[in-house]
């Protein structure tokens, strides 16, 4: 009889999210980042290991404890088109979590609360009577955020919260999340594949490959001095929106192997340009490297010595001329008479 295949989508991951920070989990398709997010949220239960939230293990809780957890921890989904019930008005959509988590509120209080939440995310109270299809992608994502905020969560987990949006709208939602985080003293966990968004939003980051964390640490440090070859390759693969900045690309051959049948030893060794013979045999542990970072690579020190400039150059690659125009644009959008001072997304 054939053996049942087990896919370890997340395998031996340890991360620590500090109160008040934005923690990012980054990786390409199939690295297990979304599964990890669902584990944190307790939408999935881990087969092994523990997840502690504010000191308490949440891995096996159920009933009232789980309901309370759902109040303190909320989720923002990637696709604003499929995560909102099209048959519910915005007022109902945002009112529902209020009803669940704060049943003591009267109907009038709830309606006032919906209005307050809509204003908080940059929508108007009268939007409560409309339905999801009447809104643009960015506005729908705002509705999703209002829903997440309804229970006054202390932790919000966003799984690719801006990747379905156009760039100009993406910036609106990135700024909104940033503002809400500081205004409500929240902790944010962002799962994303876009490294520029990650760099912009997060304080610390964990890089995942095939179900494991290969490198973690302060975002600025990881981007300036990536130590794991996969992080180097990932950073060097991103085309940058500035002209004439040729990068030395650390090209990876092939594609991510199937998580159902991961390579032996270091899971990255089949694609690693620095792989040596014993990488196929020995599993590297995630160990403290330097400057609060942790790296899972046997040879990171030697690799770093041969590639002193693996990180990104510190200066903004965009020309002075362009930056001057950006400043003019920014000043104009901030101007009081400008229609952008209030939310113009109608």
């Amino acid at each position, binding site marked *: 009889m054939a053996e049942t295949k087990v896919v370890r989508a997340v395998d031996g991951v340890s991360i620590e999210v500090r109160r008040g920070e934005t923690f990012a989990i980054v990786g*390409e*398709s199939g690295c297990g980042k979304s599964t990890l997010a669902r584990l944190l949220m307790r939408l999935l239960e881990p087969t092994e290991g523990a997840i502690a939230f504010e000191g308490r293990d949440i891995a096996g809780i159920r009933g009232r404890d789980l309901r309370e957890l759902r109040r303190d921890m909320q989720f923002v989904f990637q696709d604003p088109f499929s995560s909102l019930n099209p048959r519910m008005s915005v007022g109902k959509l945002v009112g529902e979590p209020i009803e669940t988590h704060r049943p003591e509120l009267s109907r009038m209080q709830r309606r006032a609360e919906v209005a307050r939440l809509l204003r908080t995310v940059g929508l108007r109270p009268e939007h409560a009577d409309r339905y999801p299809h009447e809104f*643009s*992608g960015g506005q729908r994502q705002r509705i999703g955020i209002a829903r997440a905020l309804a229970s006054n969560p202390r932790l919000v987990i966003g799984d690719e919260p801006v990747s379905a949006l*156009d*760039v*100009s*709208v993406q*910036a*609106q939602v990135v*700024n909104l999340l*940033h503002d809400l985080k500081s205004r409500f003293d929240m902790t944010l966990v962002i799962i994303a*594949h876009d*490294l*520029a*968004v990650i*760099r*912009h*939003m997060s304080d610390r980051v964990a890089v995942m490959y095939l179900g494991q964390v290969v490198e973690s640490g302060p975002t600025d440090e990881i*981007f300036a001095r990536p130590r794991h070859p996969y992080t180097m390759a*990932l*950073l060097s*693969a*991103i*085309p*940058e*929106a*500035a*002209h*004439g900045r040729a990068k030395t*690309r650390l*090209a*990876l051959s092939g*594609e*991510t192997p199937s998580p159902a049948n991961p390579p032996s030893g270091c899971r990255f060794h089949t694609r690693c340009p620095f792989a040596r013979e014993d990488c196929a045999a020995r599993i590297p542990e995630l160990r403290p490297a330097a400057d609060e970072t942790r790296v899972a690579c046997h040879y990171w020190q030697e690799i770093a010595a041969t590639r002193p400039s693996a990180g*990104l*150059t*510190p*200066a*903004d*690659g*965009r*020309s002075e*001329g*362009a930056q*001057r*125009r*950006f400043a*003019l*644009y*920014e000043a*104009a*959008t901030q*101007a009081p008479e*400008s*229609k*952008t001072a209030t939310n*113009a*997304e*109608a």
Partner: protein
Amino acid sequence: MAEPLLDVKNLQFRFRGQDQDVVQDVSFRVGRNETLCIVGESGCGKSVTALALMGLLPKDDVRFGGGEVRFDGESFAPSDQGRIAQMRGDRMAMIFQEPMTSLNPAFRIGDQIAEAVERHRQCGRAAARARALEMLAKVGIPAPEQRLDEYPHQLSGGMRQRVMIAMALANDPELLIADEPTTALDVTVQAQILDLIAELQAETGMGTIMITHDLGVVAEIATDVAVMYAGQVVEYGPAEAIFNDPQHPYTIGLMASVPTLTGPRRRLSTVPGSVPSIGQMPEGCRFSSRCPFAAPVCGTRPPLRDITPGHRAACHFAPLELHLERSA
């Protein structure tokens, strides 16, 4: 100046039942060995422009409002989609964003590539199959003999996009139109595909039109850039000029709203609001409803005019410094 490979002049059309053009006065040119990037966000008309150039628009549903498409010196009326379509798959080819939906799941990939070759080259089955094998090897598919007889679902996303490229280039087209070919792919695979397209272009000298929303991809591969907003080209010019001297407020806003990988982390600029639906387009400059510099004059449509030779912008206020000083 030598005649470019493709010269599109004042392309204009609308869909049946609409009272506004979805593509309005769009002009650009592409030479051999050049890469024009058409950049813009959802609904800007970049993909339907590509479809029109390929003769893929359903003629009963589209009303063309004039313009001209010149391909290698030959003139076509955009409304003559049938005549344009005759060059498709042969002299010009297209690759799409989602390779899974552009490949037929019921046929072996070798047969799909061979079909395109047989149709245009009037060669035998064996020769077409040999060409398919040659192309699969060329686009870097490992074990091509074996892959030839596989079905699309047996390949990964990156491999499918390589198959699409093999199929598109099998007849040595002079023009390749790529519509967001790497958007569905992971960054490390995207890098491989962009490198592959660049290699093949260097080898064949084809002209390329790349349609994308990703300014990073544009910076990497473009020789020229057309920025589209709501069916209009708002800025057009050499890539260097667009990135180092952006003129149109939309181009500027778009660039300033992209988070950067380098430099200090600042609050992102935004383009307020979202693109109006086609029935609610403002008169004149279509960007005026979202533009922080908008003034009454924007009710008349600004012409796409030269700011410096070859670098054009459609804004009454370009260059911004000059006009802001004047009004201050």
